[in-house]
């Protein structure tokens, strides 16, 4: 007898992801789908996809959804949630989307305490457009627009969205995680579940920043990218739970 332990969650459509080999976007999609399955809310959940490599996210989830203009996902999600408070709405956004062009939208949605959930995928670069510097790019990191490495003097400092957001009173759950090891994948799943529970329980806004790899634009293979994230991103972006008003799962 074989007992099934892990298989593709129902909340994924089964359509093949368009991501590069080893890209963490796929792991993060799967975790969201597992959480939505476990909460039993698939038919009531709406995804707002961003502009970025995950622009087709709405096709990969087995749920209704839309794409917002670059950075505007929290504004679109606000409208959806206020029109249909009986549904659950989440945005899926990259660091270029959320921390550059969309900084105003995320700050205000969080501060208003919109009852939506945001999954923020920070890979320290603009992936889709070919590896330009993002506000989250590390100092010294080479990108197509910082060919000699990012310098604080010329390009400013890496942007810490969780640390900026943590003063917002409307936030019910705020955490930074990573998915470069199986143990971290499990921890990220728990954080994503809490960010959804913040909405399901009607407490407030929930956000998880997931540190993520972009092997293609970092110019290294997927396994080295997992190590690079550990060695370079963790010192700049320490993991942690910044706000938790959700409490225990039940």
């Amino acid at each position, binding site marked *: *007898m*074989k*007992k*099934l*332990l*892990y*298989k*593709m969650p129902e909340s*994924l459509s089964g359509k*093949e*992801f368009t*991501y*590069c*080999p*080893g*890209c*963490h*976007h*796929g*792991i993060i999609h*799967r975790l969201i789908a597992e959480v939505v399955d476990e909460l039993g809310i698939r038919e009531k959940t709406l995804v707002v996809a961003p502009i970025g490599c995950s622009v087709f996210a709405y096709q990969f989830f087995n749920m209704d959804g839309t794409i917002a203009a670059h950075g505007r996902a929290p504004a679109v999600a606000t409208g959806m949630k206020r029109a249909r408070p009986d549904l659950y709405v989440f945005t899926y956004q990259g660091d270029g989307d959320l921390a550059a062009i969309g900084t105003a939208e995320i700050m205000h949605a969080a501060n208003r305490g919109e009852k939506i959930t945001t999954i923020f995928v920070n890979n320290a670069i603009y992936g889709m457009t070919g590896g330009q510097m993002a506000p989250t790019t590390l100092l010294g990191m080479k990108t197509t627009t910082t060919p000699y490495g990012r310098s604080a003097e010329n390009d400013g400092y890496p942007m810490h969205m969780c640390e900026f957001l943590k003063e917002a009173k409307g936030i019910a759950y705020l955490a930074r995680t990573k998915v470069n*090891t*199986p143990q971290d*994948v*499990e921890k990220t799943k728990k954080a994503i579940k809490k960010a959804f529970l913040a909405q399901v329980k009607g407490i407030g806004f929930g956000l998880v920043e997931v540190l993520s790899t972009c092997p293609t634009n970092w110019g290294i*293979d*997927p*396994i080295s990218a*997992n190590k690079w994230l550990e060695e370079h991103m963790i010192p700049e972006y320490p993991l942690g739970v910044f706000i938790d008003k959700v409490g225990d799962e039940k």
Partner: protein
Amino acid sequence: MPKVKGYIEIDQERCKGCGLCINACPTKVIELSEGFNSKGYHPAEAKHLERCIACGFCYRMCPDVCITVYREE
């Protein structure tokens, strides 16, 4: 000898040969196959299934959701 016996299936047509499952597997069950799939990748292959302990690490790390894990009972 491991007490738990596991079994995995890999959807080789979905696989992009990234190797993250191979790197994550504690008992070295998986290798990249010599052949190609229709996307042109060398897909992952469960070459040493007898060593599988059903830990699910390969499933957890696979970015393309190619792996299904079972426990033999």
